[in-house]
């Protein structure tokens, strides 16, 4: 019974951590993409003939903006969907105790 409550506690904290990882990463990328797209449209409006060149630059920057948010999101998903080290550690300790 105690072990069940311990595991439940860890799972709860894991859910919060995963939510923070995914949510904050998405927030940051969203702001980044908003600024990036806005500036791109501004630039094209000023000089429409440069739009092809700007598009390539925007795609490069999109990749850069994307990258670290994606790592954070994956860590969140891993916490969400796998057992991971936390729960298995508790189960191991529980085995040793009992």
């Amino acid at each position: 019974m105690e072990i069940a409550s311990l595991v439940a506690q860890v799972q709860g904290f894991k859910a919060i951590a995963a939510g923070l990882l995914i949510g904050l990463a998405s927030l940051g990328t969203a702001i980044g993409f908003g600024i990036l797209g806005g500036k791109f449209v501004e630039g094209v409006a000023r000089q429409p003939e440069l739009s092809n060149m700007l598009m390539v630059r925007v795609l490069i920057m999109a990749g850069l903006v994307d990258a670290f948010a994606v790592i954070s999101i994956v860590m969140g998903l891993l916490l969400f969907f796998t057992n991971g080290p936390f729960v298995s550690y508790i189960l191991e300790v529980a085995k040793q105790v009992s």
Partner: protein
Amino acid sequence: MSQLPANYIEHHLEHLQLNLNTFTIGHGGFWTLNLDTFIVGLITALLIGGVFRYVAVHMQVGTPGRLQNFVEMAIEFVGRTVNETYHGKSQLIAPLALVLFLWIFLMNTLDLLPVDFVPSLLHMTGVEHFKMVPTADPNMTFGMSVTVFCLIIFYNFTVKGWHLGKEVLTSPFGPYLFPLNILFRLLEEFVKPFSLALRLFGNMFAGELIFILIAMLPWWSQWLPGGIWAIFHILIITIQAFIFMMLTIAYLSMAHDMH
């Protein structure tokens, strides 16, 4: 699917490993070779090399075939990108960029194969774990980025010579703050391999994990999310390969620039 979701994912995240101490399949601490990454990487590299060699030998001047057109397009694209950023004389950078771009692109493209297709085929022949995408393995991406890092250091020393010392000591803040300058320079250089490798690894790993998550849905509902993610992923694959190439060129041209 008869397994728990967590087991299914963890099963898919394990490599086919070779213990280099005893040359048996299994985990060997530090001396572990990820066989799947190694073999798939080698096959893709040989494929690119073979195709390009074939085209180079069978080149036609009058009416180029489709394959020759494709190869010329790739070479011209990379050549143009290199010419825009790099203005030095080195003969190595353009071929390096071409190989990096095509190799990473091909390895990333393996992400679009169904996640269970190759592993389950190999499962019938007795292979327990197999990860198809080499760039979703940090060892692969760090291997490439550390190679680039060594080239950056090599060119810094050979091209700049004694000038490098002056640059490191005085670069952002002037000569009186030289300890801070050295610290900044070291940080700037050592961040490069990490950012290169982690960016590529993170994106490919994320793509693979989301495909695995989609594969856990019931079979009739996999098509829509799988299709959407695959289309989005084509963009990511190309952009990540392009960014890796682009940053390599930029770093190497920074190593060549004298101020």
